């Protein structure tokens, strides 16, 4: 058996002698690799263009054909951060950060115990509970928004960042429960039992057996919840005004054109997206798991 698997997959037409780990056929490989590179490049072009334009002067940003080699400047960023007048983006960035971080903390506080009760010591009918959580994620947000708006109006919570924090928590909780359950399910239950028989206390069990398995999962879950909260527009747009507006709401100020403002728009789009880019690349390996609600590993 081992002889066949060792010899079999090595085709005679193999070209790359120095690459022992390549098992697939290499014929046509160059063309397909080139295609992958071209497609990948096409998909990243709008982002590259956004970054390049943000470092051009407004005059260079608005030329046709585009001036790729124009001198770089921080003018767009200075304008975005309020050098040319207009409201400063800092309060909205701070609001976004508050809402995203605090809602993520709340999500973890609620999701980790719940995931524990759904995996390590599962309640009866735990799959039903899992699917209840998931089903709340499938109902369109916009259909429940009006009562929330009216409630906020009556209770004076309109334009209050805490309202967004609570709503973002409920928005991300199903994702977090699903992700955390799939991570906790990997905790070796036999080791937990052995530890409790040996008289290890709870903190010891948590820090030495559970934490090493679960910490990467907690990190990935937090990053994904952070991204979804940071991106959210509809609720922030309808439930906040000048005090609690978040960065995406601030960006909606650029929806209508305002003369030569392309570099400023691109700088704004890049600055606001930067935390998501960082969090996303950090969570790259677990991104699929989060986006598919833990269904795909």
């Amino acid at each position: 058996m081992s002889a066949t698997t060792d010899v079999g997959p090595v085709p005679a037409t193999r070209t790359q002698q120095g690459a022992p780990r390549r098992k697939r056929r290499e014929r046509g490989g160059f063309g397909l690799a080139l295609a992958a590179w071209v497609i990948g490049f096409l998909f990243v072009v709008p982002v590259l263009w956004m970054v390049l334009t943000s470092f051009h002067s407004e005059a260079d940003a608005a030329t046709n054909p585009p001036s790729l080699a124009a001198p770089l400047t921080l003018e767009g960023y200075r304008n975005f951060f309020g050098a040319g007048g207009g409201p400063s983006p800092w309060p909205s960035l701070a609001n976004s950060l508050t809402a995203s971080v605090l809602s993520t903390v709340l999500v973890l506080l609620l999701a980790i115990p719940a995931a524990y009760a759904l995996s390590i010591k599962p309640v009866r009918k735990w799959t039903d509970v899992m699917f209840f959580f998931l089903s709340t994620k499938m109902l369109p947000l916009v259909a429940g928004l009006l009562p929330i708006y009216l409630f906020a109006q009556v209770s004076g919570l309109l334009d209050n960042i805490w309202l967004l924090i609570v709503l973002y928590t409920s928005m991300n909780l199903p994702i977090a429960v699903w992700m955390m359950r799939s991570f906790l399910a990997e905790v070796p239950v036999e080791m937990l039992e052995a530890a409790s028989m040996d008289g290890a206390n709870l903190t010891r069990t948590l820090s030495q057996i559970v934490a090493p398995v679960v910490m990467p999962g907690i990190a990935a879950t937090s990053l994904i919840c952070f991204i979804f909260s940071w991106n959210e527009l509809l609720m922030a747009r309808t439930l906040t005004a000048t005090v609690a507006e978040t960065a995406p709401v601030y960006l909606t100020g650029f929806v209508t054109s305002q003369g030569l403002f392309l570099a400023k728009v691109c700088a704004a789009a890049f600055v606001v997206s930067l935390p998501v880019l960082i969090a996303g690349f950090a969570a790259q390996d677990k991104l699929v798991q989060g986006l598919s609600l833990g269904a795909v590993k």
Partner: protein
Amino acid sequence: MSTTLERAPGGPPQTPEVRSGGALRRSSDWARRAPLLPALIFTIVITQLPFVATLVISFMNWNAYYPDEIGFAGISNYVSVLTDENIRHSIFVTIEMTVVVVLVSLLLGMGIALLLDRKFRGRGIVRTMMITPFLIVPVAAALVWKHALYNPEYGLLNGTLTWIWGLFGSDNPPQPDWITQGPLLSIEVALIWQWTPFMMLILLAGLQSRPLDVIEAANLDGASSWQIFRYMTFPHLRQYLELGGLLGAIYIVQNFDYVFTITSGGLGTANLPYTIYQLFYQAHDYGRASATGVVVVIGTILIATLALRTVSSLFREETR
């Protein structure tokens, strides 16, 4: 042991329960439930109560501009939802946008996942480049598409056309006004750009979970690449295609950011979320906004049921 396993099919191996007495079991049941309850109660209160309220309001005559006329309206809101030209149009826009974006990004995502499943130089870099569109804040991405790419005077698309025509010595390149000439298509292209990476990631995960030894065996037996794809890869990918399609559909149906940013609902591109937003946030017609919301929920339940079925089949496989 076997009885406990039977009661939770597909669950992780459970510790055998002590079945000594009803009271003891009940108290241990509650100890098990306790960590779950805060999350469960929170979710029910924040997500389910508003829907109940929406349902109630949808049967009411309630416009904030006419506070004296609040009252029971029967099904008149639903009648007006289904007869209103604009709302009916937005139902079709929502369906068209969802179908086009999901299908195209699934197909593109599958092609790219197949390319990335092969080993080649710089595969990691290409994968990173492919993920990037998904990591741009949707409003920001929509702004970049609107102003930096589609703009007829200095957008990158027309700029590139000018450059290409210039290469051939022509100073009369076509300069279409992309958003005005194809408003819905402009939104869809931007959405496809952002969602293809999502599909690609899910399908790539599906491809990489294929049993490679079987495929190598088929390879040895002289099966062609097409045969391997048609009879082995594709059937394996099917549930990942379903999952990607259904999750994508759930997100795209709810899409608000792109419509709001690129066309502000103009030029016949208002989808249901945007229409509801307008009805309640600008027209303050709470009754009709709620009835439209209920229609969206009914429409989504169909997709959601299918999605839940797909997730549960994957879930059972994983926990088996």
